[in-house]
């Protein structure tokens, strides 16, 4: 029980000892990022269509921004075990940063009340999504 309470509050990213291990962890991070990117795209689309109000969109966007930032931070803090891992790390971090920037742009626009134009603002996320999916495909077993 104590264990479960502890588990509720932590977001553990253990150390990676081998390349495979590191690869598995980068896959998890990429999947989280993809989920965030896609959620933001759907939110933006919904808001542009007038199907959601400001408070809902704002909270939803901040949550995804936080989720992505946390995933990025966690991934960045993992020590890559070898040089091959360095490449993988650089590749994914670039994708994560790009997605983070684009989500922030959407959040800023939403806070200003530009709900109608959110879909346009969120357009660059489509590329992030594709890139993340490619990344995921490339490291699948």
């Amino acid at each position, binding site marked *: 029980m104590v264990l479960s309470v502890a*588990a*509720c509050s932590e977001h553990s990213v253990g150390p990676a000892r081998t390349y495979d291990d590191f690869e598995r962890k980068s896959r998890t991070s990429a999947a989280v990022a993809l989920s965030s990117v896609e959620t933001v795209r759907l939110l933006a689309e919904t808001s542009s269509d007038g199907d959601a109000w400001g408070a809902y969109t704002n909270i939803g966007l901040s949550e995804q921004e936080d989720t992505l930032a946390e995933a990025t931070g966690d991934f960045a803090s993992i020590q890559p075990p070898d040089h091959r891992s360095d490449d993988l790390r650089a590749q994914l971090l670039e994708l994560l940063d790009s997605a983070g920037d684009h989500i922030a742009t959407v959040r800023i626009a939403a806070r200003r009340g530009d709900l109608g134009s959110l879909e346009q603002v969120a357009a660059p996320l489509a590329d992030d999504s594709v890139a993340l999916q490619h990344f995921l495909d490339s490291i699948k077993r």
Partner: protein
Amino acid sequence: MKKVLGVALGVLTAIGGFVDMGDLVANAATGARFDMNLAWVVVVGVIGIVVYAEMSGRVAALCGRPVFDLVRERLGPRFGLANLLASFFINMLTLTAEIAGVALSLSLVSSVNYLFLIPFVALLVWLVCWRMSFVMMERVFGLLGLCLIVFAVAVWKIGPDWNQLLSGSTHPHVPHSETLFTYAYFGIALFGAAMTPYEVFFFSSGAVEDGWTSKDLGENKINVLVGFPLGGALSLAIMASTHLLLAPRHISVDQLSQVALPVASAVGRLGLAVVIIGIFAATFGAALETSLSAGYVVAQYLGWPWGKRDAPRTATRFHVVIMIAIFGAAVFGLSGIDPVKVTEYSIVLSAAALPLTYFPILVIANDARYVGPDHTNGRFLNAVASVYLIILLLVAIATIPLMIITKGGA
């Protein structure tokens, strides 16, 4: 006529009251991650809760004694105490999850961070426990919970290929991106969400508070046999909505706001409003039920006066336990733990703890000294109930190892 209306109201309340934070999170998350491959678990869970609730309702009506009162009597004070501690702890996790759920749903309309809303929600929950009448409380939140039907509307609006949806549900397999372990873990979460023990503590205590007698057995049966399966159908609609709209986009559900997203997208602004009212009512109703359950289990174990039908001064220690529980849950919620994670752990542990209370009820429902010779379990019910006892034991054994292997379903 009045009787029919009463029965209808009871059924509607049972439907609306079925879904809580656990069902919302578990169904939405599995729909997005496992498509409809775990839909069968909801069916298994619903049949389980029907069996469990019918037995405990019957026992409560015939001997005036709710579930936890009987746990100590059948299992002895020592095992009963261990049982009490486990049940109380899990109930606290659930209460925390529900309070956080109410706060989250309010934050989606007010833009205020949910953490600021938690103390306010806790106070509101306590006020209702303190002042509102039992029947009123049950009806208001049960009926408002019916707003969740909008999930079914969303599924219909998305206009899926119904045959595919059905065959996806009836031909389950482990998706290749997942392991058997995560599949089983989420299965247990869904099962625990459908068959939460606090529902039964509340249900049977409520039966005693409402003064049920053998004349109410028919109504008990209808509420349970009609209300719970329809509540389960609602859960499946939640699962289908995320399966149809979120799964193709590779979205995993880890926020409550994402649960409402398919409805907003498919039904629009009004749909979003309705679903948030529904989520609010479902989580608030469940917060009340879990608060009261905290009082019920402790008071019934120790033989204290309990009940919220009469003024608080007639059951003072019972009300103090409720206050402490709500306060504790609010503090726990404020500590910044992830509400969705708390929900997941609460339902998984609920599933693991089920045999502890299910087993004594199964024995007592067969004991003529309690229910009278004419109302013991029938042969068919006993067969089904025995199968469930085995299922519950297997689930209880598997839960903790699965939790460790999958790192909490990661």
